[in-house]
């Protein structure tokens, strides 16, 4: 996978362990990294799905697959301790899901048309 890795998510918890405190700037920067990664992967996934000729439901399955791979890689990058970088699982798993869908569909259509209905 083309490693679209920014300079690492920055840890954001302050020194407390039981009292959850968040450094807002770091959290925002982490969210931006997640967003960029998802957008990039959805574009690449769209092109791949188009070139391989997936149609209909299979294409959306590819999209979900690509998002899942992105989530796994982000989790691995955060060293599997999500709670010291984000405040909930939902953020890293679900955040850019729908936003990436439109870009995915656009590039999927584009690649599919160029390659198959040429």
């Amino acid at each position: 996978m083309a490693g679209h890795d920014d300079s690492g998510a920055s840890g954001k918890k302050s020194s407390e362990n039981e009292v959850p405190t968040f450094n807002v700037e770091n959290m925002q920067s982490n969210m931006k990294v997640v967003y960029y990664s998802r957008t990039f992967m959805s574009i690449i996934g769209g092109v791949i799905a188009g070139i391989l000729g997936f149609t209909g439901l299979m294409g959306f399955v590819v999209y979900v697959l690509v998002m899942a791979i992105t989530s796994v890689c982000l989790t691995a990058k955060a060293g599997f301790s999500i709670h010291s970088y984000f405040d909930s699982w939902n953020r890293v798993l679900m955040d850019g899901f729908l936003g990436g869908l439109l870009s995915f569909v656009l590039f999927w259509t584009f690649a599919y048309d160029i390659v198959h209905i040429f």
Partner: protein
Amino acid sequence: MAEELVLDTAIRDWVLIPLSVVMVLIGVLRYFVSKLMRTSQLPDAKIIKEGQVIIRARNLRAAANFIPAKAFRARKLYYTNEDNGLLHVPKGQAQNPQAQMFSDPNMAMDMMKKNLSMIIPQTLTFAWVNFFFSGFVAAKIPFPLTQRFRSMLQNGIDLSTVDVSYVSSRSWYFLNLFGLRGLFSLILGEENATDDTQRMMQMSGFGFDPSKSLGAEKDGLDIVQHEWVLPKFEQRAEAVLRKRLS
């Protein structure tokens, strides 16, 4: 009944790719133009002061548990006191920022400029697409849609038996419009003025900010339950040290 239409190669070369390229270029152009046209707007001192007060109140609310109860109460009263608390806005003044925003010539001009810079390229491109690229099948979307979308997606094509997957160039324009937002956010730095809804929200929140969010912060401060966590910190420090030393 999947009739595979064979579409002319020229359509690919002269419709899809130019349309996408033009939309990307127009987006980039609009970004730079908006950056150039962003007149240095002298910020109003009063609004900034109120904004800073809100930020301070918010910090107090977020970190309330780290200061002793008495200190927290003193600070809370400083903000929410009915007579001279910082967050208490007299009723008559609440409407002012809104009216002021609309009658202030500078701000109105700015808003109009930003609106225009969004709407004009979109309208022009849409008209251009309709004029040049109508009346033929432009692309095939790879997933099937129901018959109800036919009128929306196939506006120039007057055959009713063509598969709904074959769309006209107008729908290609809309697809590009929504799909290129992600691309713009990648190549142009951060999320910029290509997203209508976000910009609209930002615009509408600007003038109402002082009056309403002051009241909201005051209510938030009133609600906070103060629970001082520092007494427990000795145990926590002990636990951390134990872990370190063992």
